[in-house]
């Protein structure tokens, strides 16, 4: 008995290296900070989801009868603010980027471990301001803070929320900076740029956007607060300002921010699809370069949010043209992932199901983006439920599905435990079905003309709204189930072992959970990424190595 106990005594790893609250709050281990982020953003995801459920319940009937108009306006505002600034923006980069970037490139930690911890504290402080705004009267400007409503007319807590968004921006900048420097300076010997996993390329491109775009949002949001407090007249037409200036500045960040949310999950897709097809991704160079192209072109399309806002006809057309260009690299990725499946040896573990869902939903989200990029159509459907459906297909169908995919794929690495596969597959199916039922009817509603942000609506829109609410209930179950089985797996899950999926990548060559410094000794990279032929021993070379 005693010897048995000794052999099951857990090896030292980053989770049991130290104990106590302070060992977490003062940690500089990128993996622990990733878990701090994971815990925080999960809480915010369910808070934002709670607001979403109230919105869907209100919209079950045409009359605004469940909550007051002001309350409804606060609900959709807080749903947007919490989901975007407190969940989607940090979701994959600050959790999985944080956890995996050093491990994937064979480093002990990020380049600036203390800056990494600071980014989490700044995030929490910013989130505190936003939560303060929520509990002390809420915020009703929409997550977009459009002037002059936000600066002059809103009676809600704009300044506190604006400060919160401003502060969380710095955490995003710190994370971006850290990932960029780490990728440049800390790659293992032999790990050249073209041997990098595509996850790293996607995070590198994301980091560029974070570092270049976020300061613009920060300045803009400070201007809103200053204008509200001191009436500077930057956006106020009566004082010679221009409300459209706000929209230009806001979307200059907030359109690239969409790519902050979606690009990292595209990196996740490349890893997962390669692993469960047992293949190197088709067109590695093109997938990598399309990430960079998206990051660059993403900065040039902001005014497609403003076709009807009062910009000139020619400006709208130029931005329409540029918008169509940015659609191309996304299409290239989808085709390459699909081609990766060709002649693969495919298995259907939960992450792969999420990856299939991602490709399908992101394809619909991207293609409906083409509708909105077309000025002639956008004039009719902008500011309607068509837009709501489109960005949920990208943000939930894409980014959240990608997040769930990553969570299942790397959960064994993070915790050393396997989740229950059957439950996980069921929840993936529920998410897919519930999601489509929630948001597909909204495309129809939008083309029929139902404007977004409506508390009450004409009765002819009811049937589709009921379908949408029904779908949201299924979606909620699909998102709650993982909470339960992941928690269960921490105690009762099977031990994962270092590499349960036989995946390529340096992060799988160390123990699960990894030790504090990730690797016993610095790995040396001698081949390109995704060497599945060597891992599976299916090539001449692989056989020779094995022999």
């Amino acid at each position: 008995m005693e010897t048995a106990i000794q052999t099951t005594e857990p090896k030292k790893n980053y989770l049991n290296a130290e104990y106590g609250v302070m060992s977490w709050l003062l940690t500089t281990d990128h993996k622990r900070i990733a878990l701090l982020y994971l815990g925080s953003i999960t809480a915010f995801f369910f808070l934002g989801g709670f607001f979403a459920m109230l919105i869907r319940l209100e919209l079950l009937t045409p009359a605004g009868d469940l909550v007051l108009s002001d309350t409804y306006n606060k609900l959709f505002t807080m749903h947007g603010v919490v989901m975007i600034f407190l969940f989607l923006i940090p979701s994959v980069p600050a959790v999985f980027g944080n956890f995996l970037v050093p491990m994937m490139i064979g480093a002990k930690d990020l380049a600036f471990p203390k800056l990494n911890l600071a980014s989490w504290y700044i995030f929490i402080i910013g989130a505190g301001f936003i939560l303060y705004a929520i509990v002390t009267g809420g915020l009703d400007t929409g997550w977009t803070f459009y002037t002059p409503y936000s600066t002059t007319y809103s009676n809600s807590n704009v300044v506190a929320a604006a400060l919160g968004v401003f502060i969380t921006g710095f955490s995003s900048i710190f994370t971006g900076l850290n990932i960029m420097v780490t990728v440049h300076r800390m790659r293992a010997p032999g790990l050249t740029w073209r041997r990098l996993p595509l996850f790293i390329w996607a995070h590198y491109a994301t980091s560029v956007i974070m570092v270049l775009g976020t300061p613009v949002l920060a300045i803009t949001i400070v201007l809103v607060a200053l204008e509200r407090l001191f009436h500077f007249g930057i956006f106020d037409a009566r004082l010679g300002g221009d409300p459209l200036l706000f929209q230009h500045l806001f979307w200059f960040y907030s359109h690239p921010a969409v790519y902050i949310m979606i690009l990292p999950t595209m990196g996740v897709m490349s890893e997962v699809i390669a692993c469960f097809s047992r293949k190197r991704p088709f067109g590695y160079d093109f997938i990598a370069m399309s990430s960079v192209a998206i990051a660059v072109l993403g900065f040039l399309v902001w005014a497609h949010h403003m076709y009807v806002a009062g910009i000139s006809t020619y400006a709208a057309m130029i931005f329409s043209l540029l918008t169509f260009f940015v659609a191309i690299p996304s299409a290239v990725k989808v085709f390459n992932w699909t081609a990766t499946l060709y002649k693969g040896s495919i298995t259907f573990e939960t992450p792969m199901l999420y990856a299939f869902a991602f490709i399908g939903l992101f394809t619909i989200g991207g293609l409906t983006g083409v509708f909105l990029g077309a000025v002639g159509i956008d004039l009719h459907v902008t500011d309607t439920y068509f837009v709501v459906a489109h960005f949920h297909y990208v943000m939930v169908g894409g980014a959240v599905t990608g997040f769930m995919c990553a969570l299942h794929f790397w959960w064994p690495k993070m915790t050393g435990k396997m989740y229950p596969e059957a439950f996980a597959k069921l929840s993936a199916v529920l998410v897919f079905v519930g999601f489509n039922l929630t948001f597909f009817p909204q495309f129809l509603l939008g083309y029929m003309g139902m404007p977004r942000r409506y508390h009450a609506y004409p009765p002819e829109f009811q049937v589709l709204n009921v379908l949408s609410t029904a779908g949201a209930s299924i979606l909620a179950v699909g998102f709650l189930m993982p909470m339960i089985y992941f928690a269960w797996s921490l105690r009762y899950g099977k031990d994962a072992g270092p590499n349960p999926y036989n995946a390529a990548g340096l992060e799988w060559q160390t123990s699960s959970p990894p030790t504090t410094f990730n690797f016993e000794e610095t790995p040396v990279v001698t081949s390109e990424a995704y060497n599945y032929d060597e891992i599976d021993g299916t090539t001449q070379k692989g056989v020779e190595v094995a022999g």
Partner: protein
Amino acid sequence: MWSNLPLFPARASTMAGHVDALYFALVAMAAFFTFLVSALILFFAIRYRKERNPVATQIHGSTALELLWTGIPLGIVMIIFVWSSVIFFMQTRPPKGAMEVYTVGKQWMWKFQHTEGQREINELHVPAGRDVRMIMTSQDVIHSFYVPAFRIKADVLPGRYTSTWFHATTPGRYHLFCAEYCGTQHSGMLGEVIVMEPADYDRWASGGVDGSLASAGEKTFQQYGCSMCHRGDAAGRGPNLMGVFGRPVLLDDGRTVTADESYVRESILNPGAKIASGFKNIMPTFEGQLSEEEVIGLVAYVKALGNGTANLPIPVSEPNSGTYPLAPKAEGSAAKSDKATTPAKTEPAKPAAKQ
């Protein structure tokens, strides 16, 4: 709730057909690619599942394929770009001679002023078969004028005029929504567009109004002493406004602007922004003293002066006598005394011409 389940909006303007045609083309394109990608994934997933294909074949990629699936989507979106831009040009360029309806959006109602003089709130009567141009501004936050049945939408901003136009085809009642979030009662900022047969509309428009919009503007023009300087001869300290509207104006910095609604509005509320060549920057601002409706009346009046349907008075008094009333006290004694020194007696302006 099941009795009424439309899945497509009514089509009641000449634009609806154009927008719907492109929409259906895009739906077909999107359906094709969604089906293609889904079918390929399903086929590969079944054909190359591990049980059937235990050993993956490593393929690094194919530049030819990459070029193909970069080039084909690029070609498709360029076609969409041209097609949608053509529609957009139609949407944003009102035909010449369209009748005009002035619109003021405010939290949370729509106010419309017809050039014939009719005013209405949250209801917009328009004739079928005529071009109608909306000239819009907001009194407070940003709103958006959206009529799904016409497939048009344009934001309504404070501090400037925006415009859109439509040519209604089918008499009936259609939703008017505010599409830009504007505060508490955003979803209550609803209206109805009532499209009438042209004869019915003409009867409606001329019924029970006391004077056109331009004549209301003329009253404002007199009341605020504008005619002191903007005289009907060359002796005024401000430009003679006869025949100015719609024509190019040379500015003192050498630029030329077209005297459109926005220019007239700016010249009233922010006179120093663009000074007409040969005049001094002496006009006081009327910002905060005129309501948006009064400004609209003035714009309509200046427009009527521009096409000769109204006339400017030529005062007999010397233009430079007395001190200039720097900021006309709103509705106050200054305006009245101006009137007293200005023997304004013109015939009431005829209704502003339309079409």
